[in-house]
């Protein structure tokens, strides 16, 4: 029997080796994947025992902070958002059971004060507990409040305001808003809400840009040398494009006109022809340089920021795909853009053609009050040169001073901008009516020395860009300019 006993022991050894193998797999080899699992709340629970840093507005207003609950081992920190719904977007939330989102998720490491292994051992020896850092944002509380209040009066939509020279985001407002304090109790209610309050329309709303896209077409025309400000194109009341009539408002015939007149009056037939002259490669090249087709380089989780561009059933189209270029040039076709992207277009023109990376954060401050990291503004791309930007600015000033965007005018300040009104009939989110539009205004001020570039949009409105979006632009811009920048 001894031979069998030895063999049996061998089998037991093998079985135990299997146990060690599986334990190694879970504890070491597969550990990271397991920590990332949706069902795994351990990483969050452990974080919850660390005091997460605060999130502050540019003026020091506390947007998010953690308050202790319970004592001793049961002590944990719970996130509070003192300003409620005002910063629900873009700050997001961070709770144990519901997870985290948006800014809270992106800046998680800074907020929990993630340390290197060596630092944490040192801390342990010194008896210090890990503490999170504060993150200060660029958000202007007054402007954010004005933007959200205006939106709530006008309809669902979004406002994005960028400081053109630095890419600092002063406003990211999305209507309808939600109060992150409600998330622990009501996340499923918010998720089911047909108005989608959890959707950050500023970065995830994909809307037809309408005539605001003519700024991109004009930029491509000027910078590529296809046109100069003096170049005239004959703009009849109606063109036949791919078998379908493409008309101006009221089928108005403008005759031969240059860029200024075309942009001021938002002449469809003029820009459609410019688009066709540019060709697909050139127009898409400029779109890409403005950031279309890529996930914006903003400090938000990349899965929560949507791309802009021409889409076909969710697939982004490239220059080799067949598109109706004349209609792309006037913001129709299958273009879908985010308010953030259109604000970036305005910011790039305002900043002499240089597009800065849009950033919400400004600096990270450790628990002792030391600034440990500071935003170093950097250029994302340079879609057009300075001269083209200046020429385009002049044309955009005409829009506000005498064209389709007069409601954006601010007394004593020159404003450059462009309106947009994309018809969205039979749209399900708008209730399927025939009169609904996507109203837009993008622009910047002051035109000669821009301090702020803004995109404002309202969805499912029966009004035009100048009626409903331009006033929002004006209010937000005025607030920021009066605040001294």
């Amino acid at each position, binding site marked *: 029997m001894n031979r069998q006993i030895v063999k049996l022991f061998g089998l037991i050894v093998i079985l135990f080796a299997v146990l060690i193998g599986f334990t190694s797999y*879970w504890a070491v080899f597969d550990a990271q994947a397991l920590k990332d699992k949706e*069902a795994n709340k351990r990483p969050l629970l452990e974080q919850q025992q660390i005091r997460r840093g605060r999130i502050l507005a540019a003026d020091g207003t506390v947007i998010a902070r953690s308050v202790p609950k319970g004592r001793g081992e049961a002590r944990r920190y719970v996130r509070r958002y003192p300003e409620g719904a005002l910063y629900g977007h873009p700050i997001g939330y961070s709770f144990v059971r519901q997870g985290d989102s948006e800014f809270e998720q992106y800046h998680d490491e800074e907020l929990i004060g993630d340390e290197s292994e060596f630092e944490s051992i040192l801390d342990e020896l010194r008896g210090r507990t890990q503490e999170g850092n504060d993150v200060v944002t660029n958000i202007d509380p007054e402007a954010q409040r004005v933007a959200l209040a205006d939106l709530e009066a006008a309809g669902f939509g979004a406002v994005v305001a960028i400081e053109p020279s630095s890419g600092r985001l002063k406003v990211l407002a999305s209507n309808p808003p939600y109060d992150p304090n409600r998330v622990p109790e009501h996340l499923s209610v918010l998720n089911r809400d047909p108005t989608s309050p959890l959707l950050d329309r500023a970065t995830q709303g994909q809307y037809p840009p309408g005539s605001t896209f003519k700024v991109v077409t004009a930029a491509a025309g000027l910078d590529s040398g296809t046109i100069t400000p003096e170049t005239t194109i004959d703009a009849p009341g109606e063109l036949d494009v791919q078998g379908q009539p493409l008309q101006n408002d009221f089928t108005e015939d403008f005759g031969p006109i240059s860029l200024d007149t075309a942009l001021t009056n938002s002449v469809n037939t003029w820009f459609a022809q410019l688009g066709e002259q540019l060709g697909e490669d050139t127009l898409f090249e400029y779109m890409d340089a403005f950031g279309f087709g890529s996930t914006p380089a903003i400090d938000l989780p990349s899965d929560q920021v949507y791309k802009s561009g021409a889409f076909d059933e969710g697939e982004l189209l490239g220059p080799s795909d067949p598109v109706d270029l004349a209609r792309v040039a006037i913001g129709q076709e299958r273009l879908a853009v985010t308010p953030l992207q259109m604000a970036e277009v305005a910011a790039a023109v305002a900043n002499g053609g240089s597009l800065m990376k849009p950033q919400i954060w400004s600096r990270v401050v450790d628990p002792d009050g030391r600034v440990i990291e500071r935003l170093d503004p950097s250029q994302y791309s340079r879609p057009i040169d300075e001269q083209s930007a200046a020429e385009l600015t002049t044309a955009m000033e005409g829009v506000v001073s005498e064209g389709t965007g007069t409601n954006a005018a601010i007394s004593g300040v020159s404003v450059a901008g462009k309106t947009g009104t994309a018809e969205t009939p039979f749209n399900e989110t708008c209730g399927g009516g025939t009169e609904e539009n996507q109203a837009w205004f993008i622009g910047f001020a002051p035109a000669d020395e821009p301090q702020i570039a803004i995109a404002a949009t309202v969805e499912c409105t029966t009004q035009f860009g100048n009626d409903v979006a331009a006033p929002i632009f004006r209010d937000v811009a005025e607030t920021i300019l009066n605040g001294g920048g």
Partner: protein
Amino acid sequence: MRSARNRELVALVPVALLLSAGFAAVFAQQSARQGDVSLIYGAYFLAVCLATHVYLRLRLPDADPYLFPLVALLTAFGLVMVYRIDPDLARDQANWFVLGLVLFAATIHFLRDYDVLERYRYTIAGVGLLLLLAPRLPGIGQQVNGAYLGVKIGPLAFQPAEFSKICIVVFLASYLREHREVLIVGARRVLGVTLPPLKHLGPLLVVWGASMFMLVFIRDLGSSLMFFTAFLALLYVATGRFSFVVIGMALFLLGAWFFASTVPHVHDRVEVWLNPYNDPSGSGYQILQSIFAQADGGLFGKGFGQGLITIPGTDAALLPAAQTDTIYALIVNEVGLFGACAVILTYMLIAARGFKVALLADDGFSKLLATGLTAVFAIQAFVIVGGVTRVIPLTGVTLPFVSYGGSSIVANFVLLALLLLVSDRARREARA
């Protein structure tokens, strides 16, 4: 002559050191709350170990010197783990530890001539089966998580399967000792497969039937697996016929497959094992949290007393049944892969010493008894650790000497006593 016991005493030294370090760690962690209670626990534990050692010196001077220190190591580790989970549970556990040692001493005292067990083998088998049945008996049976595992008679609650396993092993060792020859000689080759003679197959089929019965009526997949594997191990050692094992395994898998598709409880266990992510907050919660706890441990663990067992601020379990079923996951979480390997290694060393006892033993019954006891012990450790690490479906079997649970501790000390009895005789005869 006393060299075996001297080695045992020396081997107890590292146990004492580890225990002191463990309790000191808990003490350092929780001193604010617990005062110096933890240190008193440590001293008390060591005193009991020393007393047991002295008793073994007197009664079983030649018994294997390493088995008791290894078991003491596991018990000490388990006690510290349970203490760290809940000091109140640790107090129970410490009491059971003492009760276990009392029964350990009693077993050694009354079964010095353990051959007497052979005479009562059918009685013992009957008791074993009755114990298995008990949880289904009206009035005393208790259902836990869909399985009938417990018995409650007045204030006394216990898990009869823990004791039943010893009875069954004693019966099998005795029965196989007597019938092994006929099982080997009478075997016939049918269609190229060696089959045992039908006449002697009866009692073995009863064991198979008992396993299936447990699966269906007790719904205890873990114990069923443990019993049947131990049975196959014994059958193999007794007959040397690997084909018997294959046939037995096939029968078991066939039965398990059949009942897994007909008995909902068994079916659910298997389903959760294969697809835990289908219901991560429901039926898959325990196994997933167990795996997540291990992932959080890494190589070195989070440190003693640092792991999360409940969701902070609530009583909701983050690691369900941390003190019993999933204690191994907590071990990986807190002392890491290295600590867990040390625990597994300890079980392996106990198995090695147990099989050594079987190798040294002279007569068939002693050999088979030592083999059976060792096998059932090692397989129990495999079944629960395998369950927690998703090697096999997770079942409610305890981790011997480590998990919280009176029946488990007490029954396993009786098991250890029997092993030491066999060992003492074998080594004495080998020396003579």
